[in-house]
């Protein structure tokens, strides 16, 4: 293939440089998780595994991490269920006020987080709701929902309706058709949506900060600690989660590439 607008070697070199740029802060966080630091983690003082082996010894960091996992799991389950139902309805059914429904679904994604956070906080304030883990979960379900709908909708749209028809022709009840045919076929899309939702929830800081009260999450812990220096244990958790996520994604990719290869070979 001829080169159109970029030199032959220039583009790959550029890509490598861009990846280095994207990965620098990750590398920094990882390296400083091995720093034999005292209270703050600003200056390199020597290599140690202690922060990894004794990560929970730092006050509050594991508790914040645990809260983030709990909030992430509950928000993901609820948002994925509600979002999947909407996605199926949007693709499969005709109903009135369709454009109003789409607008309602897209607006949360087009609203800056600070507005979502302050809005929900003023509602909790007006109704006298005590802020804590529950209000964080309420907030996270809200902003994950639209992302689930967008992700699952693509999958529903690509589903061959003939498969469900076949199920009905063979006297499958509506619930049998759904659970034996529709749901398994939608599963990859639902899983993708759930992962996205969990990632959004786990890393959210801005909306959480407005609606958490005294409850701590991992990002909030990091933000609060930033004023006096983030402890190395926070780097350990960040790096650990990163390695786990990358390992999962790369394994899935390599496996599906191998599967595609096998299929091509027949």
């Amino acid at each position, binding site marked *: 293939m001829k080169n*159109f607008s970029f030199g032959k070697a220039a*583009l790959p070199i*550029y*890509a490598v440089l*861009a*990846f280095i740029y*994207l*990965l*620098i*802060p*990750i590398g*920094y*966080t990882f390296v*400083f998780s091995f720093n034999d630091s005292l209270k703050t983690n600003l200056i390199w003082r020597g290599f140690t595994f202690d922060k990894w082996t004794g990560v929970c010894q730092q006050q509050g960091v594991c508790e914040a991490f645990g809260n983030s996992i709990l909030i992430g799991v509950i928000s993901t389950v609820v948002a994925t269920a*509600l*979002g999947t*139902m909407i996605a*199926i309805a*949007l693709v*499969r*059914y005709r*109903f009135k006020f369709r*454009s109003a429904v789409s*607008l*309602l679904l897209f607006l*949360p994604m*087009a*609203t*800056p*987080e*600070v*507005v979502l956070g*302050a*809005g929900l906080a*003023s*509602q909790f304030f*007006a109704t006298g709701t005590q802020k804590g883990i529950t209000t964080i979960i*309420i907030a996270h*379900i*809200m902003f994950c*929902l639209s992302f689930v709908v*967008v992700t699952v*909708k693509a999958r529903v*749209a*690509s*589903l061959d309706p003939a498969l469900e028809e076949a199920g009905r022709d063979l006297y499958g009840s509506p619930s049998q058709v759904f659970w034996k045919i529709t749901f398994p076929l939608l599963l990859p899309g639902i899983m993708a949506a759930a992962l996205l939702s969990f*990632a959004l929830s786990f*890393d959210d*800081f*801005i909306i959480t*900060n*407005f609606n958490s009260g005294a409850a701590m999450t991992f*990002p909030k812990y*990091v*933000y609060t600690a*930033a004023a006096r220096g983030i402890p190395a244990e926070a780097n350990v958790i*960040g790096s650990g989660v990163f390695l786990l996520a*990358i390992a999962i*994604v790369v394994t899935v990719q390599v496996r599906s*590439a191998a599967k595609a290869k096998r299929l091509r070979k027949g």
Partner: protein
Amino acid sequence: MAFAAFGQSAPAASTAAPVKSGGRVALFLLLPGLAYLALFFLTPLISLIVTSLQVPSASGLYGAFDYGFAIENYWIVIESYLPQIMHSFLYALIATLAALVISYPLAYFIGVKIRSRPLLQGLMLTLVIAPFFISFLLRTFAWKQLFSNESWIVTTLQSLHILAPDQYLVGTPFMVIFGLTYNFIPFMTLPLYTSLERLDTRLLEAGSDLYASASQVFRKITLPLTLPGIISGTLLTFIPIAGDYVNASGDFLGGTETAMIGNVVESKYLVSNNYPAASALSVLLMGVILILVTVYVRKSGTEDLL
């Protein structure tokens, strides 16, 4: 409807699926989720507008407000926080353009140049989204450390006389824009990739066969065909950047001179309990963004996309 532009990566609503008019089933499927959004997205927005019009309480208690219709709250916040409002939109504009310039060649490389190698393509996409897997606060803090006053980057720039001996990077608009650009690059690269991945390279060949120069091919073929990706990418970066307050915070990359709307909203809401001012600023931010986005999508002529 401007906001559907986000959905461009999803295929257009399938025509293959039979669209049924089962009112009851549709209602059952839609109602829980939509009721949820009505309760925890729409009413909060209304609550925000109501709060933005409140007046200080007659009781004179600190942090207490009565319902009112104080439209002047808006003039007060505009007058008091004009620099912060300008920072938000200016930084968002510059960071969005910077992210576009940085991301486009990268997305082109992944989506067009290595198209024939799906595994490599997948791994490179993983690298693009890799920053998402580590807390963005940790990443932003890492940049702060790398550019801190004692870092070799700053001392080198000082010895090269690019920076004056008493001049530093953290706390400057440059650093805030740098951080914003970095944090939102994946949001730009992914939609660009989606567009470029679908680009039919035969059209580019046809262009150059007809003696178009490389830059003509790019301007007349590649760019117009990937416009939907550019529009989603710029929206997905501009909106969150305009509302961000972590990068501009004094504990991260910013300083007193770089505060954005989000910083003011945070301190008014969570520190000084001035809810009406915080709400008025939030409503203002959202209003301006909605107007800008609508005008932008109209101007770029992609309404058929929506």
